[in-house]
Structures are given as structure tokens and as C-alpha cells.
């Protein structure tokens, strides 16, 4: 069955792409996931890959190589040959590795096969808090500087960046308490150990729906389909608009100098896979916005994201090295 499918795909590939001297891929591909099993990146990778395998006519063997906020997986794929047989399944993190002083490799060293989807942030609060709007929250923080506790996930994480945006739009002083991830942070929020937290809609949607946390505002220029009732941050603070849209994203990369025909083959397979209705539905259900872009379009998105976020961190005093050092332009 597999052989027939593989042969069929190879035959089709040979017809469609005469530029490839030999049938490609010659063997199974390896996909290295930069986050652990069960996390957001892992779920996206494992849900998408079967559809891509069908389109590619080859197997992609997935491995989790978590650690170092994605630096280890990025390094591993970068060390592999540029033959398109080793794929990096990643999230936004490497785009901040330079300014955070973690590594010298980012997505500029890779070719974006597909930027699959992006997430949207939402600011949620403990249900016992009186706030009903972002303005009320900000007023309370201003009245009690350094008293209100914000859940966070460490430098460069979504809460940290959205906190920096808020601070840039309207100066606020909060206590940021870092947790091991969005899940543990939301748990602490429900236990009353922090007062509010910016998190991904994907992580918070079900807790909001159950009324266990209170949505304050979505970090997007307009309301999102998953949370149609929740006001966008720009309603109270139009200044947010210049950073948006912003959010975590998930994608697949190969080394930049991978041969063009191989890139094209992968781009095609991932574009078909990411358009599969089952996958599209999963993304919508998780509160992600499907992007399914590649090549120059994806590169432009990645550059803008890096520029906006790096300079935000620089202005918030959270960057260890200035984006200027790496030639990252101001947004």
C-alpha cells in the first residue's frame, strides 16, 4: 500500500518536476519538533504531518527535541545537510534568540517551507477581580503600582511581550511572576496566585468558556471568532494597533541553501496538507488563525515579527543585546 502510494507520488513528481534528476525524496524525512510532546507546537506538527505525508508520498518521522527555548532543535537541523530531508517544526522562539543572547541562529538561516498558523493573545483575569475592561485593569494597576500580579512564562514568552506592549502603550508597573508555561500560569491564575495574565487564545478558550477565568481583551485589531464577545485591546488603547497583528506562530523550515526544486516540492506538499479540511478545522477549534504561507511572503512575515518583537523587548529593557547589533530594523 505504502509502496504503491510512494511509487505513484514519485511518478507524479517525475512528471511534474523534470528539474529533479532523481526521484525525491530518496528516503523518509525527519521532522524535529522544538517543543515537547503535548505542547501547542507538537499538536500542530502531529496533526498536520499525516496530510503532508499523503501529498508528498513519503513518511516524515517526527522527533521531539525540546530544550533551550527551541535552540537545541534549531541547532540540530542547522547542523544537518541542506538536502531538505531534515525539517524543523518550530514556533516563534528562534526569532528572539539573538537579542536574548541564547544563540546566533534564527529563521534567517532557514527557508520557510510553511508558516502554518498564528495564535492570538487574550488578557484574562481571576474571576474574583472587579475588572470588566482593559481600561479598568490599567486604572487599578496605576492606582496600585507594583501590587498587581501578572502571570508570565519567562523572557520572550507571549505574556512578557504583550506586557511590554501594554507598558509601551500606557506605562504600567506590575509584578510579573514567571511560570513554566501557559498551562501552569493559567492554573495559578485560577488558584488566585496571580491576578491577570496574557495568554494564547488556544490555551485559555476552554477556561473562558467554563467561566473559570475572565476575559478582559483580545490582543488583536478586531474581535476573534473563538471569542466574539471579547473587546479588542485597541478599543481602549488604540496605540496597540502599531504592534498588531502579533502572536505566536508555528511553521516548518529547511536550511536556507536547500536546492530550489526540493524546496518547491516541500512547499507544495505542505500547502496541500495545511489546506486539508480536517486540519483547517482543528486550527479553528484551537483558536489559531490559519496562514499557510511560504517563501517570500513568509519571510516578510517573519522579518516584521522579529523587528516588532525585538525592539519591544529592547525598549522594555529585556533584551540582552540590542537588535541594532544584528541589523534588525526598527518597525
Amino acid at each position, binding site marked *: 500500500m505504502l509502496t504503491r502510494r510512494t511509487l505513484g507520488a514519485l511518478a507524479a513528481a517525475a512528471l511534474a518536476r523534470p528539474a529533479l534528476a532523481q526521484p525525491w525524496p530518496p528516503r523518509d524525512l525527519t521532522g524535529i519538533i522544538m517543543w515537547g510532546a*503535548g505542547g501547542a507546537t507538537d499538536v500542530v506538527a*502531529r496533526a498536520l504531518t499525516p496530510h503532508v505525508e499523503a501529498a508528498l508520498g513519503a513518511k516524515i518521522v517526527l522527533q521531539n527535541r525540546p530544550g*533551550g*527555548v527551541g535552540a*537545541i532543535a534549531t541547532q540540530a537541523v542547522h547542523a544537518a545537510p541542506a538536502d531538505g530531508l531534515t525539517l524543523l517544526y518550530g514556533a516563534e522562539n528562534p526569532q528572539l534568540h539573538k537579542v536574548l543572547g*541564547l*544563540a546566533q541562529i534564527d529563521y534567517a538561516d532557514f527557508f520557510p517551507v510553511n508558516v502554518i498558523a498564528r495564535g492570538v493573545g487574550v488578557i484574562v483575569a481571576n474571576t474574583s477581580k472587579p475588572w470588566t475592561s482593559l481600561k479598568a485593569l490599567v486604572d487599578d494597576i496605576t492606582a496600585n503600582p507594583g501590587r498587581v500580579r501578572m502571570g508570565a512564562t519567562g523572557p520572550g514568552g507571549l505574556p512578557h511581550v504583550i506586557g511590554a506592549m501594554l507598558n509601551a502603550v500606557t506605562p504600567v508597573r506590575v509584578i510579573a*511572576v514567571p511560570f513554566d508555561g501557559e*498551562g501552569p500560569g493559567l492554573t495559578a491564575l485560577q*488558584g488566585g496566585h496571580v491576578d491577570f495574565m496574557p495568554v494564547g487564545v488556544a490555551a485559555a478558550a476552554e477556561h473562558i468558556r467554563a467561566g473559570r477565568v475572565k476575559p478582559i481583551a483580545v490582543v488583536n485589531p478586531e474581535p476573534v471568532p473563538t471569542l466574539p464577545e471579547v473587546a479588542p485591546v485597541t478599543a481602549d488603547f488604540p496605540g496597540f494597533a502599531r504592534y498588531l497583528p502579533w502572536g505566536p506562530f508555528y511553521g516548518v523550515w529547511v536550511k536556507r541553501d536547500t536546492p530550489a526544486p526540493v524546496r518547491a516540492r516541500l512547499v507544495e506538499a505542505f500547502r496541500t496538507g495545511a489546506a486539508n479540511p480536517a486540519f483547517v478545522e482543528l486550527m479553528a477549534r484551537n483558536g489559531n488563525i490559519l496562514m499557510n504561507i511560504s517563501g517570500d511572503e513568509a519571510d516578510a512575515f517573519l522579518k516584521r515579527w522579529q523587528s516588532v518583537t525585538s525592539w519591544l523587548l529592547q525598549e522594555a529593557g529585556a533584551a540582552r543585546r540590542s537588535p541594532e547589533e544584528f541589523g534588525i530594523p526598527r518597525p
Partner: protein
Amino acid sequence: MTPEHVLMSWLDPVLFAATALGTLAGIWIGAIPGLSVTMAVSILVSFTFAWPLEPALALMAGVFTGGVYGGSRSAILLNIPGGPAAIATALDGYPMAQRGEAGAAIGLTTLASFLGGLIGVAALALGAPAIAEVAILFAPRDYLLLAVLGLLLVGSLSGESLAKGLFAAGLGVTLGLVGLDPMTAEPRFTYGSVELLGGIPYIAAMIGFFGVAEALSQLRLPDAEPIRQRIGRIVPPCATLLRHLPLALRSSGIGVVIGALPGTGGDIAALMAYDHARRSTRAPAHPFGSGAEEGVIAPEAANNAAVGGAYVPMLTLGIPGDAVTAVLIGALFVHGLKPGPMLMIETPHLFWFTVGNLLLANLALLAFGLAGARAFARIAEVPRAVLVPLILVLCVVGTFAIRNSLTDVWWMLGFGITGYGLRLYGFQPGPIILGMILGPLMDASWRRTVIAAGDDVLAAAIEAAGSTISLILVAAIVLIVLRSFSRGKGPA
């Protein structure tokens, strides 16, 4: 109550088979050092991607239950815990096997695991929402206090010298700090190496310090006659069971609570139960550390009770109780469900299906556990020339499988050689692993506590004084320390 869903996996042959086979596979996977339950369940998520939801969940619940139990097998027979939850089991299980009582030790652990598992399921079925609400009230400071409580275990794990135990625990804490600082992402002890940014997994250390070090120790006496095992009686006599029942029940209680806490799992539960057994048993037939039956019952009851405990916050709130349930939450996503607080309200059948399924998995554990005990006990009789190379191969494979990293394999081998040297001088590996598990928990919890109080330690202490949970934990710590002093044994 929807009893038809409780019985779903009992009546449907496919689900029944998935649960039973999952449990059997779990026992084997769990028994192989390094092949962890988390890993097995993660692999199954992609393997069962195209399956309907129920058989996938049934298989994973079986692997979870069987795997936690399976870790005790290699702990007893080879002195190599199959997973971190079985570290405590090796302390008295292996000496039992050395006395020729491997069969009896397996029998006891099987019954203790079964009882613990049942209590875990009962807690899940009867008290899940209430337990989950209490679990989320645990603040960072309470995790800090739990870690302190855990550190008092060093005394129980040190062997003959507390000083050497403290040294080993300190080494473990230091190793646990390698990698990115969890608060600031500052690289610590990485010396510019990208591979070290990810830290050193404590499983790699566990495999090295226990597995390789044990293999090397056995090589010292390659021709030693293997211990003849008395395998006539696997199921212990009724009187023995009744005598140990109260301890098994208390240990299961520890397991449920620690398992249900989102920040801790079966590994800490088992170690705490072992410590509890040491402190509460007045006159064991054999002293602890030389094959006390209580020393295998307590951790095994606790780690299997922690399975049910871990499902509590997962099913009621969509919050993972441990690493395995975190993977299960990902699996629910892939299968088109929305794990979260609404899961139990909108799909209550899933909750009752899981309860019935775990019950079945525990029965399968009992059946497979007792049926295979005699054959397994014979492993202790395998000549060393065959056993030692086999152990080394499994150690390498298991370590590589943690996160597909060759660096981890080198670390593991290095730890093995170091561990062998330490062992010759009377340093125990238990406190090292304890340090690696508790060190990062203490580090993060302490800093979270102080940060949340506005960098004011006094304010943090005042806040703790107003919390019932914190006061109970402080009282427990004070009581344990005072009692140790009053018995003249020194602290811990």
C-alpha cells in the same frame, strides 16, 4: 452517574483488548530502564492518531497504569529502577531479591500497586471536582514547602552516612540547575554549549547512576553464583497483607494528593511514601534498606494511586496532573475534543469511561502482574555475563530515546562511571536523583514566591501564615524534624 459508560470498556471486546494489551505493554516498557511511560504515551498519540478516541484512550490508560507498576520489576530484580517512580522500590526490593525473595517482592508490589490504583480510581470517581479545587489552591510557596518536605527524605535515602547523603543531594541539585534559568532564560553552567542549554535530564542521570553503575559493580564479581530464587509463594499470606494494609492505605492517600497536584507526580509521591513508611513503621521484620517489606509496599501503592490522582485535574479542569496527563491532553486535542473545564460537563461519558477503564487496567495489572511473577523472578538468576551487557545496551537505548540526543548518552555513561566510584565510597545514588528532581522545583518555587511578594521575603512569610495549606505543610515539616531529634537520630 452513567454506569453504562463505566462498563463500556468491560463489555466492548476491542476496548477490553486495548486496555489489557496496553497494560501488558506498559509493564514491559516500564520495566526497561529509560523507556518511560511519558515516552510510550507520546509515541502512542501519533500511533493512534487515526483511531477512534475510545480505544486510543483505553490503550494509553493501560500503558500508563502498567508502566508505573512495571518500573518496580527492574528495581527489584536488577537494582535498576525502570523509572523515577520506582527509585524507592529498589532500596528494599533489591535486597529482598538478594535474599531469594524476588517472587515475594513482586507479589507484594503487585498487590500494593493494585490497591493504590483502586484508591486512585475511587478518589477520581468520588471526589474529582473537590480534589481539583484544593489542588489549584497550592501556591508557589506550598510547592516550596513540599520540596523542603521532600528534602527531609535525604536521611532515608543516605544509607549509612547522612553526610554522604547530603553531599550526594547537593551534587544532584547542582546537576539539576544546568541549563536555562526557568525565570530569566539566563544560561547556567552551560559554558557556551548549545546542547547544555536544554539541561541534563534526570532520567539520563538515573539510568547512569543506577543502571550503568550497577552493571559495573556486578562486573567486579563476574563469576558470582546468581541467587537462587524461592518462587513457591508469590501471593503473600493473608496475615501479612492485613498487617501492611494500613500503611498501603496511607501511602495511597499520599499518592492521590501528590499525583493530583499539577506541579508534582508519581516520582515524588513514591519517595514521600517510602519516607513515611520508614518513619511510621515501629519494628519492621527486616530493617529498612535491607529488604523491608514495608519499603516496597509504600512507594508502589503511592505511585499507582498517583495515576488516578493525575487524572483528577486533567479531566475536571483540563490541567495536567503530571507529564503523562499533559501528553494525554494533547491527544484529546488531536482527537477533536477540547480538554478543559467543560469536558466533564459536556462529555461526562468520557469521565465515566475513563474511570471504568482505569479500573479495568488495574485488574489487568493484577492478572498480568501475578501471572508473570515467577518467570520474571528468574531474571535474577540469569548469569551476569549475559545480564550485564544486556543492561548496558538497554541503558544506552533508553537514554537516547529520552529526546534523541547523543549528548545525553555520553552524560549517562559518565554518570555511570562516576556513580560506580561514588558507590565504592558509600555514596548512594538515591539522594542525587532526589536533588535533581527537587532542586529545580525549590529554585523556581522559592523565586516565584519572593517575586510574587514584590521581592519581599517577610511579606511572603506573612502571606504564608494566612494560608491553611502552608500552615499544614509547615507543621508537617516541624513535626518530622522534632520527632527525628527526640529519637536522637539527628535531623531527618
